[in-house]
């Protein structure tokens, strides 16, 4: 019953959002069925499209894991976007230095740099200030996120990572650090088997860490009841820092994977918003690492499907953001369900009592 409810709620929220989207589209004179049809075919219609969907899903999944982990530890890491970009920046920097290293080692070093950078970005300032002076992590991670993006932009706009060109950009990473793409099947997409492998590993690691290790046990205890955690001998402040650092680590890893697998360099823009969509991914998955895969795919499909929808049906891709926003709002309002049930019960019991009194 409880498990069923935890699946039904996100599904219901998504369906309501899709329905509202349909009304919006219809009101503007489009045919909702063909619009959503083009969205679905754009996401899954061919192997190439499916490849694009998977490519778009991977960063969402990896960041979403970290966010789920922070939520399970009772913390709201809203600044994953910045941690993602800091991880990407570190990976790119390492990627065009140390070119004498063997390719596989160089790749690993890039990934490690991304993870460390993301972990430090979330763990040091937001983590320490939360643990020791109680500064709210929503604000600190958000502020740090903007600082990260401005810092990365500075690096390629007149800073030490700038490469000559018409637009601000960094040098390309060494070609032997770039992940190879599928040569068949998904050939037309930028999907790499290595990225998929890393994402799959990340899911397993996150799941194992949360549910099978003493570290995860401690984190979840702190998230659910810090007082009981203290009573159980868990050092609450330490685990607050660890939780934020781990959360940043996943975001940083996502940045590194994206650089090595897709972008190969920092480019002006920094407007992927992966870090924000990933919050929705985690919320919709109710912070379960395995469910993050499904909700990550859902939002990845929304992104790629939206681009196809714009081309085929001439409906702007930003419709998918409307849907995303609505879904997050409705999932946020989940407490309406017990409230409605409670209200109904009270009404019934009030009616039952009235004749007696």
């Amino acid at each position, binding site marked *: 019953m409880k498990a069923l409810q935890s699946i039904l709620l996100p599904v219901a929220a998504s369906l309501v959002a899709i329905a509202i989207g349909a009304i919006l589209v219809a009101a503007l004179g489009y045919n909702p069925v063909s619009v959503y049809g083009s969205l679905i075919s754009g996401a899954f219609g061919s192997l190439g499209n499916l490849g694009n969907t998977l490519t778009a899903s991977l960063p969402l999944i990896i960041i979403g894991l970290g966010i789920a982990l922070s939520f399970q530890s009772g913390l709201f890491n809203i600044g994953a976007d910045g941690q993602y970009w800091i991880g990407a920046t570190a990976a790119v920097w390492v990627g065009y230095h140390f070119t004498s290293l063997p390719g596989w080692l160089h790749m690993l070093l890039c990934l490690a740099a991304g993870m460390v950078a993301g972990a430090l970005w979330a763990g040091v300032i937001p983590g320490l200030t939360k643990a020791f002076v109680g500064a709210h992590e929503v604000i600190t991670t958000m502020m740090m996120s903007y600082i990260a993006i401005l810092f990365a932009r500075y690096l390629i706009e007149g800073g030490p990572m700038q490469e000559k060109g018409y637009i601000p950009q960094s040098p390309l990473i060494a070609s032997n650090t770039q992940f190879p793409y599928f040569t068949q099947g998904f050939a037309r997409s930028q999907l790499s088997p290595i990225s998929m492998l890393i994402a799959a590993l990340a899911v397993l690691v996150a799941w194992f860490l949360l549910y099978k290790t003493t570290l995860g046990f401690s984190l979840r*205890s702190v998230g659910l009841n810090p007082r*009981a955690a203290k*009573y159980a001998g868990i050092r609450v402040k330490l685990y607050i820092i660890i939780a934020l650092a781990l959360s940043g680590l996943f975001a940083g890893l996502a940045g590194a994977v994206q650089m090595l697998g897709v972008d190969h360099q920092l480019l002006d823009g920094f407007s992927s918003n992966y870090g924000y969509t990933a919050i929705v991914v985690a919320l919709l998955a109710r912070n379960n690492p395995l469910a993050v895969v499904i909700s990550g795919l859902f939002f990845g499909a929304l992104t790629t499907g939206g681009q196809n929808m714009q081309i085929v049906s001439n409906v702007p891709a930003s419709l998918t953001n409307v849907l995303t926003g609505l879904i997050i709002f409705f999932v946020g309002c989940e407490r309406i369900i017990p409230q409605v049930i409670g209200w109904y019960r009270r009404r019934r019991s009030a009616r039952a009592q009235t004749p007696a009194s």
Partner: protein
Amino acid sequence: MEPVLEVVDLKKWFPGVKANDGVNLTVHAGEVHAILGENGAGKSTLMKVIYGLLEPTSGEIRLFGQPVHFRSPRDAILAGIGMVHQHFMLIPALTVAENVVLGDEPGGVRFDRREAVRRVRELSERYGLAIDPNAKVGDLTVGLQQRVEILKAFYRKARVLILDEPTALLTPQETRELFNIIRALKAEGVPVLFISHKLDEVLEISDRVTVMRAGKTVETLETKGATPQMLANLMVGREVVLRVEKPPMEAGPPVLEVRNLRVRSADRHERVKGVTLTVRRGEILGIAGIDGNGQFELADAIAGLLRAEAGQIVLDGRDITHLSPAERTQLGIAYVPQDRQLDGLVLSFDLASNIILRDFRRPPFSRRGILNRRAAESYAKRLIEAFDVRPPDFRRKASELSGGNQQKVILAREVSRDPLILLAAQPTRGLDVGAIEGVHRQLVRLRNEGKAVLLISLELDEILSLSDRIAVMHDGEIVGVVDRAEATREQLGLMMTGRRAKEGTA
């Protein structure tokens, strides 16, 4: 003279609990009327009913002869009831004047601050409540904050003032000042209802006193003719103490020694002021005392959850004063905390996880940081069976269990760790009779096995029926330690109010 406030045969029943079960009370103009009773006697339920926070099951409240039915505190305020809660309803960020006039401010659109200050100043002069209307409430001492609450009541034209445990958080100096205020109010003709469990204060300040016990008002008498002994007897009653079968035991060597321990609570108040005590193998040492006298902070400090400001804690000959909670657990301290839902359990975890909550870092429950769920499950299964936890399913979340079964889970976890000493803080709070018996049996079994038990309870009956020795705590200090065989309820009742034992064996 017409009574100001009358309570007639008031009953307030909760499912399973008769919190008020026949309360009768008459307060006259110009008198200070005390309500005296132990914790759990039903005093605060009565206050909530009078103030419109709870609706009575039956009975009547009359104000100046008129029956009244309050649906919210607002109704009560409008009718002229002024209440000063034990926990103040103040807004620390605002000034005294703002707090007092809030909800009924002078001015039109604009808030006439000057007028507010003037009115508050006038009120404070009239009632002798010296205070700076422009001070920020958050910067005031507790005693001054209480004055703000009293001013709030009079600003709303209170015709009767109810003070709920008003001295609980005050220093002796502040208490004296409060009493002066109460006398001044009495001179003004304002009736004051003074709720307290402190004998001395009741004797000092009240004209008449009504004693409550087990939800009923027992007797109302003139304070002038009352003696402390008389009131103490009325307060604790003379019912037969629940007997627990307990073979005589020779207490062994000391297990826990606490020396000159000083502890501050989380809100930085010093709550334990130099406590020294010893618990031996094979004994239950009961700590009696009224709530808020430092006994729970003492337990937290022994368990390592609060830091010792000074003094020493020695477990089995080893100084553990500066060890972490985890290390103390490992060395053999088991702890049933006062608030089982807030401290003792992670309610959303299943029973298996809750049962290993204090040991998950150790084999067999984990090795090298990897949990062994199977070990946890088989262990949980065993404990659930042994302690008859219902439903017997380790996959259930702790939140799905009744209070009694939650407590069984905690006890099972703590007792089965083969500790040297068990700290049990209010282990039967809120449990039904059957569950209470079960908990008591476990404590005695532990003692019979030669372990030490430190039992902290606000229920004198529980202390009397279980303890081998009884230490009484008052205001952060041990007033005295007496053998159970020599202890009487009356003597303990007096000690709980801070009077030294006449022939204490401390």
